């Protein structure tokens, strides 16, 4: 009986680990959209996800990156109206099954809903 | 009632399932737009192609040497005969007969060696036979590359080394057995059937000779055979040689019907469908009759030809290869795991 109980525990633990692995290892597609949204115009931006090397994205372009796991850090760098360099650090979370799009113009202008799931 | 029960028990459920399955396919086929006549014709053509290869298993089973998983060895001898015959430029029936005649000394030699090895490993024949067959295929692959063949029909037109992987016998002896009988009939492979009947009759005669009786005794009870003064090892070698020679002849008949000589890796798994066929026909690891050969080949080839067309028509997917794998290996597995067949090739 003890053995059965232990196996149940073991299976539960393994299932838990599997779930954790699934969540933390799941690869997501994240689009970075630099097109005009509503009244917000787009500008050239340099971005970096999870500390990777920064990349530039021009106006009206869309980039795609693969990220692994649920929690991510996004750093963007751009020149504001005044020509001053601005660095914005943001975090975002993804549920295990979703892919997402980041709308840079929204982010730059401080809107809340700068990231939307794709599906 | 009891009779039917024992009959069913003797036949074994896989055989019954396969027979019913095949029957049901023949019944169903007209309703889903398959031409029953041509389907049956297909089955018969393939029967003619394969029957001798299946027949070649009989001597070894009879002598208790087990299922001949080393059949590729005989097949290679047949291939040698075929390519040498083409190289010599023999055509028509002469080419076919030449191929057989040339292949026989090779087959006898191979079989003799193979038989002696199998005598050293009584009880473990099947596994070792399998790997002897595999190794012979690999070594012959090297031979096809190295042997100095010149015939334009067989070497690569440009580039490449050695012989082609498939050699057409169109201009040599394609369907020669039918042509000889002046019956180039697509429906009924009469030539092959007559040839098979001759060989099967030869086999029947053989098992009524002194050596044939001795072979049966060795297979059914080796202690009895020993006490009767039979030289068991010698008889076993004889049976292996016979099987190997028949396999060589079998592959040549197969090729003349198929139209191509397939070299290199083609003979690798030749043994498995033949073995599956004879088992479906009701043979066991150490017991077989010619009826088993005929019934088994027909059922097995029937399944192979009918399932793809029927399944294709129903679910639009070609599953023939998968079904072939499952049926043939499932059948062999069933035979190996049966308690009463526990003689392990003894």
């Amino acid at each position, binding site marked *: 009986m003890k053995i059965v109980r232990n196996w149940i525990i073991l299976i539960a633990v393994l299932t838990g680990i599997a779930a954790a692995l699934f969540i933390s290892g799941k690869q997501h597609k994240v689009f970075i959209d630099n097109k005009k949204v509503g009244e917000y115009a787009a500008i050239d931006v340099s971005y970096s996800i999870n500390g990777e090397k920064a990349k530039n994205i021009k106006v009206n372009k869309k980039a795609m990156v693969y990220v692994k796991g649920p929690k991510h850090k996004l750093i963007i760098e751009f020149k504001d109206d005044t020509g001053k360099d601005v660095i914005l650090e943001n975090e975002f979370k993804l549920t295990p099954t979703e892919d997402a799009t980041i709308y840079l113009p929204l982010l730059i202008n401080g809107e809340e809903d700068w990231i939307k799931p794709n599906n | 009632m009891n009779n039917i029960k024992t009959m069913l028990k003797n036949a074994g459920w896989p055989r019954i399932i396969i027979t019913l399955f095949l029957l049901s396919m023949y019944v169903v086929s007209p309703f889903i737009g398959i031409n029953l006549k041509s389907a049956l014709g297909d089955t018969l053509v393939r029967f003619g192609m394969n029957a001798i290869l299946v027949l070649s298993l009989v001597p070894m089973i009879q002598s208790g040497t087990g299922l001949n998983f080393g059949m590729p060895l005989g097949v290679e001898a047949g291939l040698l005969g075929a390519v040498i015959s083409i190289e010599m430029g023999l055509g028509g029936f002469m080419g076919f007969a030449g191929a057989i005649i040339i292949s026989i000394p090779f087959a006898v030699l191979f079989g003799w060696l193979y038989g002696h090895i199998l005598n050293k490993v009584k009880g473990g024949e099947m596994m070792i036979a399998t790997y002897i067959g595999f190794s012979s295929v*690999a070594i012959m692959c090297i031979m096809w590359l190295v042997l100095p063949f010149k015939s334009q029909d067989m070497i690569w037109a440009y580039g490449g080394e050695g012989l082609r992987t498939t050699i057409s016998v169109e201009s040599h002896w394609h369907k020669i057995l039918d042509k000889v009988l002046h019956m180039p009939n697509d429906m009924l492979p009469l030539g092959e059937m007559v040839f098979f009947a001759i060989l099967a009759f030869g086999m029947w005669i053989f098992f009524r000779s002194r050596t044939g009786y001795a072979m049966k005794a060795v297979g059914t009870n080796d202690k009895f055979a020993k006490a009767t003064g039979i030289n068991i090892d010698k008889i076993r070698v004889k049976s292996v040689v016979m099987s190997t020679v028949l396999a060589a002849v079998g592959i040549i008949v197969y090729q003349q019907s198929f139209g191509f000589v397939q070299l290199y890796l083609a003979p690798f798994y030749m043994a498995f469908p033949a073995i599956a066929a004879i088992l479906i026909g009701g043979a066991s690891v150490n017991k077989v009759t010619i009826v088993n050969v005929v019934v088994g080949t027909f059922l097995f080839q029937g399944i192979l030809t009918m399932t793809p067309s029927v399944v294709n028509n129903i679910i639009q997917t070609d599953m023939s290869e998968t*079904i072939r794998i499952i049926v043939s290996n499932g059948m062999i597995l069933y035979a190996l795991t049966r308690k009463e067949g526990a003689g392990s090739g003894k």
Partner: protein
Amino acid sequence: MENKIKKFLINNVVPIFMVIIILLSIPISGLSIEYLIQEIILRLSRNLFLVLSLLIPIIAGMGLNFGIVLGAMAGQIALIFITDWNVVGLQGFFLAVIITLPIAALMGYVGGIVLNRAKGREMITSMILGFFINGVYQLLVLYGMGKVIPIKNEAILLSRGHGIRNAIDLKNIRRALDDGITFNIGQYSIPVLTILAIVLLCLFIVWFRKTKLGQDMRAIGQDIEVSKSSGIAVDRTRILAIVISTILAGIGQLIFLQNIGTMNTYNSHEQIGMFAIAALLIGGATVSKASIPNALSGVVLFHTMFVLAPRAGKELIGSAQIGEYFRVFISYGIIALVLILHQWRREKEKEAERKRILEMNSNQAGGN
């Protein structure tokens, strides 16, 4: 003394033969030693786990378990799933391990039951079982996946909408384990995690042989009837041996494939049993006796030959193809040879034993 040397030579004829072939072909091939060493490290980490998975059934007297392809298929099914789910990196690898476990255990259980019905001819049966399950696997993967079993990732599905493609790019977990931690010795890079996994398995085997279960397996391997009469649950123990072997083979296949980086859905597993067995036998193992050093040296010898043969063939006869076929021949030929030697030796030993007893008795009688 002379007798001892002779015995050693006879017992190790296969490895000695291989060493000679390799020593001869190194200069012919023109490959550098450095290249060879790097290649051997690569192949050790790729194959050793699989080869080690063969050991436990040998202890239990079930011979060479050609049924490890069952485990390999379990591993591949797991890989299809994680590729479909897009779980990447080490997480992907370990998730695949967890998924493999139950599938491989189930397959091993089935295999064990089948082999219990075929005592005395386990090897041929396990080989045919492998072919048979391969058919079932095809049915499942080629026709079931995408239809009965939901698969979303179009990159791995055939264009007809169901069935898995012939080749799957495993970029999600390519070298995940190998490159997890690496360590450089001189110019050679060592895949630490993979080696660690292999070392752990070796430790497991060493420990396992010393458990009660391991002892029972050894007993069964030597004499089934005696074991039965002393109350050991023979059939159950044999099933366990196959289950363990199959699970290990499943993990071994994962290690193998993450290293290769692509998976031939319908072929990758087919040759696994044969190559692993050939490697083990080349290391000097027999059907009834195999050790970790056999596995290790076998992988080194076999794969050195594997690397060398085509090159040597090319340099020697101007045909890489010949070398290629030669190594196929060696793989099959070695298995055939070892099986023959084993069976033959067993007969000889039985004979010698009988002679000994007879002589002993006649001596006694003479003494009276």
